Every structure is written in structure tokens, then in C-alpha cells.
């Protein structure tokens, strides 16, 4: 027994055990418990009643138009925020990769939006968008683009885009940092050779930089999509609470309302299980990318 404990395998298990207990106790066990709850009707307002209803919750959700509308909004939120944040991130990274005075300072500063909490970020943008006193109104008025202050967030067609802008601002740094790190691994000799061969800036970008960034951008798209679905709740909660007229009600917020406002725990559990499944599709893609593309490939 003592010999086993001091063997590599024994020590290995011994050292990972505490972490495993915490991670699996608080994540895997609840996930399984969640399936169990989702097969029952559980209203917190009727304690003691807990009838088994089978797949009824899932069937109801899949037939619900509110659910599919929320899923659609979630995809729009995710696609737009991830796409634009990566494009802006790529642009910023390319600039910060050039030689200029104060480069180190700018590279450090770029992390600022990431460090803010989603709550402060949401509050800040809500204040900027404010219909009576907001900075956006003030700025546009001074520029002469509008004649009078507008209540931006009251427009069901536009509200989601304002939420997305706030999310993009906070999420851009991660893209910049990833792409910048990848850019620094490209040997400058490649560019010099291309210059000698007469390739202009655009061709060097198109045929050297972009192909070498392909993997990191792919990785960013997947991981940021997962994060965006996950984080959509915070930003929507802070800026619009799903309104106006449900126009920003993403699926995470819908699950929250169902469960913790209407106290339908069984229905909510089924709902959140479906959200997890959607995300797991991305997660599987991500794991494959991580497995094949990163420095951990050998380690795993």
C-alpha cells in the first residue's frame, strides 16, 4: 500500500483528488441531478409536490415559440458580438504589432475592458445610452447628428444592437491578446523574403499573416461563442432585462425568468439542460481544436 502511494500513479491520484472532489461534486453531480429535476414538475410555490412528468417539460419547451425566439436572439447576439469583436481585435492587434513609441504601454492598457466586471460594464453602457442624460445623446447632439435626445433602448429593433456593442467593447481585448501573441510567433524573415520578392503590404497580410492566424482565429470563434452564450445573461440583465417587448430576451435570461421569477424549477431545469446541450456542441469542437492545435497536445 505504501509503495503504491509513492509510485507515480499513486502520487498522481493523491494530488488530483481534492480538485476532482470539488469540480465533480459541484458540477458533474448537479448536472446529473438537473436531469432528474427536469423530468419532474417542481414549483417552488408548492413545496412537497414533485410529480414525475417524464419528457413533458422538454416537449413543451420545444413547442414554445417564446423559446425558439429566445434561441434565435441568442444566436444573433453570439454571432454578431463574436464576429465583430474578432474583426476589431484583429485590426487592433495588427496595429499594436507595428513599431511605434509607447507600444508596451498600449499593449498593457488594452486589457482594461476585460478587467471590468460584466455588471459594471453593463451599468456603464446603460448610463452612456441613457435617454435623458446619456453621453451618447450628448455626443451625437454636439456633432449635429441628432436634433434632440433619443431613448435608444426603447426601440425593440435597435435595443439588441446596443447590448451587443457593450459586449463587443468588453470582449475585444481577449481577441487582441490572442492574435497579438500569435503574430509574435511569425518569424520576420518570412516578411523580409516576401518584400524582396516584391509583395506589397496587402499581399503579405493575405498570404503570410492570415493563413498563419487561421487556427487561432478558429479557436477564438469557438471559445468566444461559448463565453458569449454564457455571459449573455449578465449584460442583458444589466442593460435591458430582456425588454423592450422581449426584444433582448436571450435564452439564458429566459431560463432565469422561468426559474427564479416564475419559480417553475422543473421546466427551468429542462430549459437550462437544452442550453447546455447547445453549448456542448461548440465545446466538442473546441476540445478537438485544443487537442490538435496547442502546446498541450503533447501533454494531453
Amino acid at each position: 500500500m505504501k509503495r503504491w502511494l509513492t509510485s507515480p500513479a499513486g502520487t498522481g491520484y493523491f494530488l488530483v483528488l481534492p480538485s476532482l472532489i470539488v469540480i465533480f461534486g459541484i458540477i458533474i453531480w448537479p448536472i446529473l441531478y438537473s436531469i432528474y429535476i427536469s423530468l419532474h414538475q417542481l414549483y417552488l410555490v408548492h413545496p412537497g409536490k414533485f410529480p414525475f412528468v417524464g419528457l413533458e417539460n422538454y416537449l413543451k419547451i420545444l413547442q414554445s415559440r417564446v423559446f425558439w425566439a429566445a434561441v434565435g436572439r441568442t444566436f444573433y447576439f453570439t454571432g454578431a458580438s463574436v464576429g465583430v469583436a474578432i474583426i476589431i481585435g484583429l485590426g487592433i492587434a495588427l496595429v499594436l504589432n507595428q513599431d511605434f513609441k509607447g507600444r508596451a504601454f498600449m499593449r498593457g492598457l488594452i486589457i482594461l475592458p476585460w478587467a471590468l466586471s460584466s455588471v459594471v460594464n453593463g451599468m456603464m453602457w446603460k448610463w452612456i445610452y441613457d435617454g435623458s442624460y446619456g453621453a451618447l445623446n450628448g455626443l451625437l447632439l454636439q456633432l449635429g447628428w441628432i436634433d434632440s435626445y433619443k431613448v435608444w433602448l426603447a426601440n425593440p429593433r435597435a435595443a439588441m444592437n446596443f447590448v451587443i456593442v457593450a459586449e463587443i467593447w468588453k470582449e475585444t481585448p481577449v481577441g487582441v491578446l490572442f492574435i497579438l501573441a500569435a503574430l509574435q510567433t511569425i518569424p520576420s524573415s518570412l516578411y523580409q523574403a516576401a518584400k524582396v520578392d516584391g509583395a506589397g503590404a496587402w499581399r503579405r497580410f493575405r498570404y503570410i499573416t492570415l493563413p498563419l492566424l487561421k487556427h487561432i482565429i478558429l479557436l477564438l470563434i469557438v471559445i468566444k461563442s461559448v463565453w458569449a452564450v454564457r455571459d449573455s445573461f449578465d449584460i442583458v440583465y444589466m442593460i435591458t432585462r430582456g425588454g423592450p417587448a422581449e426584444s433582448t430576451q436571450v435564452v439564458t435570461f429566459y431560463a432565469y425568468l422561468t426559474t427564479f421569477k416564475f419559480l417553475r424549477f422543473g421546466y427551468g431545469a429542462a430549459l437550462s439542460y437544452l442550453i447546455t446541450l447547445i453549448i456542448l456542441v461548440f465545446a466538442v469542437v473546441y476540445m478537438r481544436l485544443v487537442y490538435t492545435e496547442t502546446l498541450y497536445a503533447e501533454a494531453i
Partner: protein
Amino acid sequence: MLIYALVVLIFLFTVAPFCWLIISSISIKTELLSVPPHWIPKNPTLRSYKEIIFGGVRTTRAARYFKQAVGNSIIVAGSVTALCLVIGSVASYSFTRLRFRGRRSLLLMILATQMIPAVGIIIPIYVIMMNLHLLDTHLGLFVTYSSFVLPLMIWIMMGYFQTIPIDIEDAARMDGCSRLGALVRVVLPLAAPGLAATGIFAFIVAWNEFFFALILTETATKTLPVLISEFSTKFGADYVMMSTGGVLASLPPVILALTFQRFIIKGLTGGAIKG
């Protein structure tokens, strides 16, 4: 010259929104609420900071809540960081250096848990915490946070352990150290800068977390993000006060991130960039 124009644009994009929050927090109401607002306040004042920290005529209640929330955030984020550093670092070492059956699948499973959305596990966690009478307690938040901070830390720290030459460890064991002895006396001290960086990262993540705290806390253990989210409903639409709270809540993560940016950037990108 074009490059500097672009850099100025990037600079404005990065700092302008947060600067406006800071300016709002040091403005007086009439200046802030004029149309258009005074971008540079004529009479900047730190009064709102004084009131939120020490309490004022109208704000004693807000100040009391604020202090309590700061305390809760420090307790939760601090204890999560400490626990994750201790058990996460040894787990991470084990995954990097030791070969044992099931190691690969365990590691992949731990990675996969990072993908699970909070909303996917909040309901069972809520029910479990309710049954254990852990709702609205530090312990409940501490345990919940640890479960999603740990995988992140194990993953990031693996990058640091990989950079420590295995020869050093072997030499220590030749000199009579046991495997654990070599880990504690040689490997962990060498990995200390990496551990510190990961700890800072964990602290920021735990400090900023909102969703779990919103659901699992009620009155006694509200963290700062939850309090901030209630500012407008609880204390009326006082934009100066709201901005002040936002700036104060952001100070720890912003200062930590800017001071240790090098480490954090490494931590954020370490797992994703080849060599």
C-alpha cells in the same frame, strides 16, 4: 504618421467609456445632467467617494451596504483564490508530470466543465444549497466559485509547470528528496511567479462573478456586483453615486490587471498558442 492616428483611435476606444464613468463619479449633479453634459467638470469633487465610504447625510444606508458588500467580495474572492492555489497547483503538477491511468480523460473532462454554462447547473445547485441551508452564506458561494475557478487554474498552471526542467526535479530526488518533497521544496518555489499570476487571475474572475451571487445570496452575503446591479432600484437614479460605486468596484481588478498585465496576458493566451 498614420500609425499614430490609429493608435490614438485604439486608445480612445479602450479608455473613453471607462473615463466617462470616472468623470461621472467626480462631477456634481447639475453639470452631469445638463444638456449636453459637461465633458470636463468645472468643479470636480470627491464628495461621492467620501459619502459612499464614510456615509453622508443621505447615504448612510448606501455606505453601510457598500462596506458590507466589499467585505463579502474580499472574503469570497480571497478564500476561493487561496483554496484553488493550494489544491489546484498540486493537481496541475500531477497532470503535467505524473503518468497515471485515466489522466487524459480526467483532464479533458475538467476542461469540458469550463464550457458548462452557469445557467445549466444553477437550479440543482440552488436546490442543494437550500437543502443544506447554505443559501446566503459565504461557504455556499466559496464552494460554488471554487468549482469553476479550479479548472481554469489547473489549465493555466500546466503551462508554467511545463517550463520547469524535469532535470531539476530529478536532481532533488537524487539528493534524497521524496517525490512530494521535491514538489514542495523545489518545483513549487520555481513555479511561484506563475502561481502568483494564476492567483491574481482567479481573484479577478471570482471578484467579478455575478450570476451565481445573484441567485445564491439574499441579504447577508451580497457581493459587490450584486449590490451594483441593485444601485438604481435601491437608491434612486443617482448617477453620480452609481458611477462612484462602479469605479470603486472596478479598482481592484483594474489595478491588478494593469500591474500584472504581462502575467495575465500569458495566462489568458498561454493555453492557446503553440510554443
